[in-house]
Every structure is written in C-alpha cells, then in structure tokens.
C-alpha cells in the first residue's frame, strides 16, 4: 500500500511540474484531469486506521467525477469553443515557473520536516510535501498566468493541494468526510461561478485575457 501511495504522490508532483512548464492550454486541461483523478485516489491507497469502506469509495467516485471529468470537461469545451488563442501567455516565464515549482518542493520538504510531528508516518510526510507543493504551484499559476482560464486551473490545483494537506492532517473518520465534502463544495461552487463569469467575460471582451481587465484601479 505504501508503495502505491508513494507512486501516486510522485505522479502528482510530476503533473504539477509539467503543468508549470506547459505552454498549451489544451495540454494543461488534460493534465488537470489526470491530476484530479490521481488526487482523488490518494485517500484510497493511504493507510488509514479504518481501511477502505463504502463511504470512502463513494466519495472517491464523486471526486473523480467532478475533478476528473466534469470540470476538465467544461474547461475542455471552453478552450475548444471559447478561447481563440490557445497560448498560455505567461507573466513569469515557463522556466522561471518551473524553477519556482522546484523551490516550492524544497520549501515544502523543509516545512514538513520543520513541523517534526511524531504522528506523521513517512507516507503522510510525502503527502504533506506534495500537498504544499501542489497548493504553491496552484498559487504560482494564479499569479503568473495571464489567461483567466489558466487562473481557474491554478485555483483547481490549489484546491487539490488543500485536499491533499487536509487528507494528510485529518485522519479521523468524522473529519475525513468533512475534507472531502468541503473541497467538493468549494470546487463546484467556485468553478461554477467562475465558469459563468468567464463565459460572460468572453462575450464582453472577446477574450479571457485578464490584462484587459485592469480598468478598475486607483
């Protein structure tokens, strides 16, 4: 079991790094779908005190549905039909982003070690590292990319990270569902609203480039 979970986490890290250097929107969306599925699967393979039960599995299915199919599907459609220019248009370049992602990993390792929590098993430590990295990378995408759609992806990634951290931290049964429930709700709500707004933005601005949206300032 430990083995599998480590592999999954490594896959997640890989997808994070790839997404940071990806310059194609379409590739990014596909990467997100992949990441969503993997992230959803993490609790299943994690050693928990109660083992795998039905509830956990149901949540897994739900998460896969949302993270792996629904949201990427929506975005796929958006990229396909809405976005004219499929370049990602970075503010901070790909290499720099990638480099930032690597620093992010180092940082998260440092943080995790620094926490020195006796109750962490090795896999939980890696989970924590991955979670923090994913969240940080999400934030980097949010800050470093110009397209509104990339920002949504960044947000998704951040949410994935939070989910991982939550999984690492909350291992009691009654809190575990809380994590799943909360993240799901967050995703659905936020992405739904963002989607609607994105749609309107596209109608109004003929593009989803956020640099066009700098009118409101002092």
């Amino acid at each position, binding site marked *: 079991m430990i083995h599998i979970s480590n592999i999954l986490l490594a896959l997640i890290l890989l997808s994070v790094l790839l997404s940071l250097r990806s310059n194609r929107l379409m590739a990014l969306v596909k990467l997100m779908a992949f990441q969503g599925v993997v992230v959803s699967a993490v609790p299943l393979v994690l050693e928990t005190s109660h083992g795998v039960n039905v509830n956990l599995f149901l949540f897994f299915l739900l998460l896969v549905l949302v993270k792996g199919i629904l949201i990427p599907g929506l975005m796929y459609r958006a990229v396909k039909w809405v976005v004219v220019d499929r370049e990602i248009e970075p503010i901070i370049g790909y290499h720099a982003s990638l480099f930032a992602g690597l620093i992010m990993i180092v940082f998260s390792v440092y943080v995790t070690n620094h926490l020195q*929590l006796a*109750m962490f098993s090795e896999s939980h430590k890696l989970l924590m590292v991955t979670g923090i990295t994913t*969240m940080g990378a999400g*934030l980097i995408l*949010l800050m470093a990319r110009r397209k*509104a759609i990339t*920002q949504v992806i960044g*947000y998704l990634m*951040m*949410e994935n990270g*939070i989910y991982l*951290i*939550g999984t690492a*931290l*909350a*291992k*009691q049964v009654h*809190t575990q569902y*809380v*994590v799943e*429930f*909360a*993240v799901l*709700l*967050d995703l659905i*709500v*936020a992405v*739904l*609203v*963002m989607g609607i*707004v*994105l749609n*309107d*933005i596209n109608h*109004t*601005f003929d593009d989803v480039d*956020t640099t066009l*949206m*700098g*009118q*409101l300032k*002092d």
Partner: protein
Amino acid sequence: MLQLVFLIPIIAGIAVFFLPVKIGRMVLIGTAITHLLITALEWFHVTGPLHNKYFSNTPEGMLVLAIMSFLFLFISLYTISYMAEVEMSKEPTFNACMLLFLGAMSMVTIADHIIMLWVAVEATTLMSAPLIFVRRSKESLEATWKYVLICSVGIALALLGCFFIIFSMEMSNIHVPISFSSLSDVADQLNSVWLKAGFIFIVIGYGTKMGLAPMHTWLPDAHSEAPSPASALLSGALLNCAFLGVYRCHQLMHSAGLGDYSSNVLIAFGLASMLVSAIFILNQTDYKRMLAYSSIENMGIIAVGIGIGGLAAFGAMLHMIHHSLIKSSLFLSAGNILLGYGTKSIDKTRGMLRLFPKTGMSFFAGFAGISGFPPFGIFISELLIILGAIQAGRYVAVTIFIFCLILIFAGASRLVMQMIFDENKEDDRLVPETWARALPPIILLLTSMALIIWLPDSLYQTIQSAISSIGGTIHG
C-alpha cells in the same frame, strides 16, 4: 426554529427566480419583514436557545443577524424603487439573489460548526457574485471576476485554516464536535502551533472577505461596481459576517490562551487596512470607491478594537453596528446620486445641495456620522477604542490609528464637501429624487442616532456577553 432565518430567504429566493417581477418584489419585501420578525422573536428569546451540532445562537451572531435583518428591510424597500427606476431586465435574478444572499449571510450568523461557517461564507460569495455582475458591463464583469477569484482563493485558504484547527485537536487527541462552542471549552488543550497556523489562515481567508488589507483588493472594485442596494448590503452586512468568522476564531484563540498573539495579528491587519484606505481616499475620484475604501477603514477600526480588547472591544462592537447603519445609508444615498447624475465621478457630481437637497443632506449627515461626529454612534465607538487602546498601553497603534483617522477625514471631507457644496452650473437631473428612495437612508441614519441616545438594554447585554468571551469588559 432558528434555521428558518436562512431557510425562508432561500426558499423565497428560489421562488422569486420564477415569479413575475411584481410578485417577486412583494415576496422580497414580505421575506424581509418575515426575516425581521423571526430575528426579533429569536432576539427576545421567544423561540428559545438553539444548540445542535451545526448551529447555535451566539450573542455576536445574533448581533450581526439583527443588524443584517434590519438593514435588509430598508434596503429591500429601496431596491424596489431603485429597480423600478433603472428598469433592469434581470430584476428577478437580482431580487432572488438578494434573498439567497440574505439566506447565506443568515446562515453565517448562526453557524457554529467550523465547516458549516465556512460553507456559509462560501455561499455568500456565490450568492453575491450575481449581484455585482447583474449589469454585465465590462467594469462589473471585471469586478466580479476579481471578487470571485480573490475571495475563492481566500476562502480556500480559510478552509485550510479550518483543517489546521481540526488537526490541532487531533494532535491533542481530543474528541469533541468541531464547533466553535465545543472547541472553546477544550481550547487550552489544543496544540498551540497548529491553532496559530489555523488562525493565520482563517484570518487571511475570512479577512479577504472582510476587506482587511492587503487582501482587500477586490473590495473597492466590487462595492463600486455593484448596484447601490447590493453595495449597501455588501458593506453593511457581508463584511460583518466575514468579521464574525474572524471573531469566532479570535475567541477560540483567546480561550486557548493565545489571545495576545491573535490580538496583535488583528491590530496589525486593522492598522494596515486603515493606512491603505487612507492612501486611496486621498485624491479619490469615484465616490462609490471612496465609500468602499471607507468600509475597509472601518473594518480595520473594528479589527483594531477587537484586537485591543477591553473597552475597545465594546467600542468595536458598537462601531460594527453603527458602521453598518451609516455605511448602508451612504451607499443608498450614493445610489440616488448615481441615478441623478448618471456618473460615479466626484468631479461631475457637484452642487448636490441645490440639485438633490434630500440626498445631499443625508449623504452629508452620513459622512459626518462615519467621521465620528455626534449625534451618530461612531463618535462614541471611536472614542472608546482610543481610550481602550491607550489603557492597554498600545501607544504606537493608537498613534497610527489617530493619524489614519485624520488623514481619511481630511481626504474624504474634501471630496464630500466638493460633491455637496460646490457650484454646479448645469441643471439637468437625470432622475429626480423621491421620498421612496430618500427615506430609507435617512431612516438608517436616524436609527444610528437613536441608538446613541438610547441603547436598548437587550442590545447592551448582547454586546456585553459577546465581548466577554474575549475578555472584553466595559468597566476598567
């Protein structure tokens, strides 16, 4: 029973989506009145206390709920006449979202479960986004995008904070429901590092929603681009709800013996907010943005007051009440100004005293109130915060506090005086003012005035019990 405060608006809101405009308006008013009634029943303990896994009626929650309910009635009355004037095609959506927004906010006020609170705050973002977005202009879209994205990021961080708090509980092997009331009882056993981390993330998360600098960036855009009734509701009610989240967490920190830490954090954020709003109120060109920055300032004041505690905490609670009343009134007046002049530019809205005497008067009175002149309540609350701060020996904080107040007053009074008193050669009024739209802001101001002359005992008791949990005392 108490759950009705959010159930009824939500049901009514969903209904309004599908009802014709006229009936929708009736439902809006009807729900507002019902909501106020339920709140009143709850306020006077007719319905009895509520304590279950998810909800509980805390004094601070009741306080926020009562303000919100009261505001909502007058804002909805104003909305009817405002919407009739602007002839918005999406009026049902707007009315429905108003109600849903009310429901979500009501849920925040009574939520006790950490995650339930978070869910409710999240819901307020969802419900209020359409309110900002309803005009679908480029600016409003931009504002909505910023609002949704920044607040979502913030709230996601708050979720992480919640996880940290839950984890701090697990670290100490405590098994209680993860609600603020039960956690407070065992707070001293919680792991302090994780609790602190949780507090940071929650303050940053809910602080984003509350408009604390430097997470405030969405606020001026959203508040200025939303239609005025929505701005009034955002400023008067939503900010309080977000504040409630921060406050709950501060309470928890206080019972865990980490009150000093959380106080310092709150004061730092509060002062930063005041400074930021000072920067932008000077030389502001848009009066709604000016009001929005003023909201940031006042949230900062409340944060500072709560952080200082003691007498200042009482001041902060009073400040919250009066800020809601006065700021909503100002935003409603701003709506009238916008209707009348058709522009948000301060330069083009001169001579209000002559062209729109009623609005001009209520706008100026509101401004005097927000600047801390009697007979409005902010006079007392600011005085109490200053007294409390010095009593607590926070001299640096009080220096910055006063410095910012002076700067903001200097900046805002120039703009407001320009709007109201300056000469205006032109005579065209796009929309003449009517009592229907002039009265709600005036009533809100009168309420603030009344509360400074006579504060009902129950209100006083509620404030007292709300601040007693952070060691806020009124005497000494």
